[in-house]
């Protein structure tokens, strides 16, 4: 990878991490309501998985979706405004944190029901296949989703119809407070997916390079009508399941261990290993991120919600 590309990766990581931190701050200030699920720690998974996507590929995922939206090219201002419930949010404040969505980015949400996005991913892929487009569908979900009925229906169908779906399982080991051993008879997400007859990959989700390498292969295969494949990205969320979760089910040691594998310092080190990059360059990127995020928060703070009369708008299309 070129230096400029790696700097871009670093920027995206800092942006995603910074956005989540700002969201946490605004949530504790009461500006964001409801549920707020933060991606901090898992940045390498989203960025690595999406690095080789084309603009016209489809992305769909779960409620932990701020990073998906931003990495796909979404405007942090519109994301923060959506979290604030304001009319200039990407969904006019009607979706909220869990339902970011932007068709112009080919990012199709943001779903609150675990594994609810999986059958929809099948539909997106089916349309692409039927129209003879060579775009693919990237579908994100967590370890918890792999026990849901709809998830199995979706994986089966995608394999049956040889659809261009890349299933990306963010195995952060916990579904709220229930760890994988306590919920899954088969602890290997990849093995479960294997049963549907598709190629499976298990990868270190804290490592951008490994992640993007595996994703590149899966995406290429899907695009060449090779059908679906499955990536189990072993990763970790540094925060609780959501802002309401004190995450007492995890020990401090465990969290510290995974913090020592933080993808951002790892990436920075890797870049410095391969290229001549001084601290000022990183600092400049950091400053840019701060500026962008400050602007996003200001934009959100200055906005306001839609008037009550619009509560029945946008139910039906003409």
């Amino acid at each position, binding site marked *: 990878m070129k230096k400029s590309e790696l700097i871009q990766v670093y920027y995206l990581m800092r942006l995603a991490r910074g956005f989540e*931190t*700002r969201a*946490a*701050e605004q*949530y*504790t*200030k*009461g*500006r964001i309501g409801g549920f707020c699920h933060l991606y901090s720690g898992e940045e390498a998974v989203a960025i690595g998985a999406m690095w080789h996507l084309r603009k016209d590929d489809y992305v769909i995922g779960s409620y932990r979706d701020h990073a998906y939206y931003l990495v796909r090219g979404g405007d942090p201002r519109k994301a923060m405004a959506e979290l604030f419930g304001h009319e200039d949010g990407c969904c006019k404040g009607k979706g909220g944190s869990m339902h970011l969505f932007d068709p112009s980015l080919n990012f199709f949400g943001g779903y609150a029901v675990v594994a609810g996005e999986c059958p929809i991913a099948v539909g997106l892929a089916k349309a692409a296949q039927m129209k003879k487009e060579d775009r693919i569908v990237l579908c994100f979900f967590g370890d918890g989703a792999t026990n849901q009925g709809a998830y199995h229906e979706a994986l089966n169908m995608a394999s049956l119809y040889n659809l261009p779906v890349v299933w990306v399982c963010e195995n952060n080991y916990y579904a709220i407070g229930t760890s994988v051993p306590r919920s899954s008879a088969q602890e290997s997400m990849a093995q479960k997916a294997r049963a549907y007859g598709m190629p499976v990959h298990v990868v270190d989700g804290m490592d951008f390079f490994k992640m993007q390498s595996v994703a590149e292969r899966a995406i290429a295969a899907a695009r060449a009508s090779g059908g679906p494949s499955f990536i189990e990205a072993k990763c970790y969320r540094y925060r609780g399941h959501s802002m*309401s979760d*004190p995450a*007492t089910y995890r020990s401090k040691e465990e969290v510290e261990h995974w913090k020592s594998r933080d993808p951002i310092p790892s990436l920075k080190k890797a870049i410095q290993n391969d290229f001549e990059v001084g601290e000022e360059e990183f600092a400049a990127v950091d400053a840019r991120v701060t500026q962008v995020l400050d602007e996003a928060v200001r934009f959100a*703070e200055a906005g306001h*919600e839609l*008037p*009550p*009369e619009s509560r029945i708008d946008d139910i039906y299309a003409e």
Partner: protein
Amino acid sequence: MYEIVMPRLSDSMEEGKIIKWKVKAGDAVREGDVLAEIESDKAVMELECFHDGRIAQIVQGDGAEVAVGQAIAYMAGAGEDAATPPAASQQVEAKPAAAPAAPSPPAPQMPAPAPPEGRIAISPYARKLADARGIDYTKIKGTGPHGRIMAEDIEQAVRTVAQARTPTIEPAPVKRTAEVRTAEPDMEPLAVAIVKRFRIDPATLRGTGPHGMILADDVVAVLCARPQPAAKPPADEELPALEVSEEEATVEEASFRLKTQARHVTAAKHVVPHFYITASADVTRLLERRGELKAKFGATVTHLVMLASVKALKAHPGINRTWDRGRIIRWKHVNLGLAVETEQGLTVAVLAEAEGLTLPEIVGRTTDLAARAREARLTAQDRRHPTFVISNLGMYGVEEFQAILNPPASVTLAVASAQAAPVIRDGGIYVGKVMRLTASCDHRVIDGVGAARFLQELARLLENPETLLEGAGV
């Protein structure tokens, strides 16, 4: 300068307690550091540092209980001067109070199709009130939506009527003696005056004023619900009132139906000049055929009497008439009223257009009518305008009785039991069965001769079964 506030750590948290600060003014901090331990309503959680910088000032110390959103410290961002007094920092912008949620707009009203001519819009409840208070609602203008007459319109009409009755009493200023609570409810002075004037029993009053105070309105309501002396009193009123103690008897309010019936039968007896005429019929031969007729057609003595009545009326149409306020109503059909015994008492079910019915038809329709009467399923049609009524108490061994007329029928025939009696026939004396029939007649439209002739014909038919059953589908 960043304001550090008491964070909202859970949905339900409204205030938190600072357990312990981990930093002090002047300390350099980094994003992600733990600044303090905070106790929320659910647990002890860490206060996270969201920016790189330096702590400028701790505003609330260890142990402070602070509402969510209130400042507890200030920090300078990277590049800012931590020594700047926090007074220069921005005030917390009070989040503009969210506009109260607009109540959902009422569902768009369908423009109510205009009621067709002659149809008055009145709510079901208002109509009930109007009936109970004796108000003619067709004279009332409704104030409800689309001109609907509502309960209040009826109440207002009641008050208007009442006011017209008490013109001499100056409406005294209402004294709300709400503070004084006595064992008996208060009455406002106007109410006291009305109670005295109309000799109303205060025990019948229900106060709707504060603390149960009886208002003039409450007295007037009772007044209007009382039977109007100006109207014709039910005959009951002419009898001395009965005072009964608990040890002597239990007292219950009669049902509306019974009250109505009592009124009607009293009026019938009161108003119509009755005369009674009795004939005997030797029904020996008729009863000899009873078994066969019952087996073949399910016919009883009552059915046979009905058949005979219909035929006799055909021959004497003058009986099938009614006197009504100076008019003579000549009925086009014979509507046979039959007194049927039900759980609720005796009721008259009407077999409409009975002339020309065969015996099997009479049996069928009467059976059906009687069954419906017993099940309280008689329709208005089933009760309408009997022109001749039959009451049969023969099954109880009654020798003879006189019935009270059932308007509009001008004759009610009381059928007694067929008694064993000596009968002279073909020159010999036999033990036969003789049935006495007593006709109660309305002397305004029926005279003795007409009644006698009719009864004679009726008896003849009952004494000659072949004639009776001729052409009757037997």
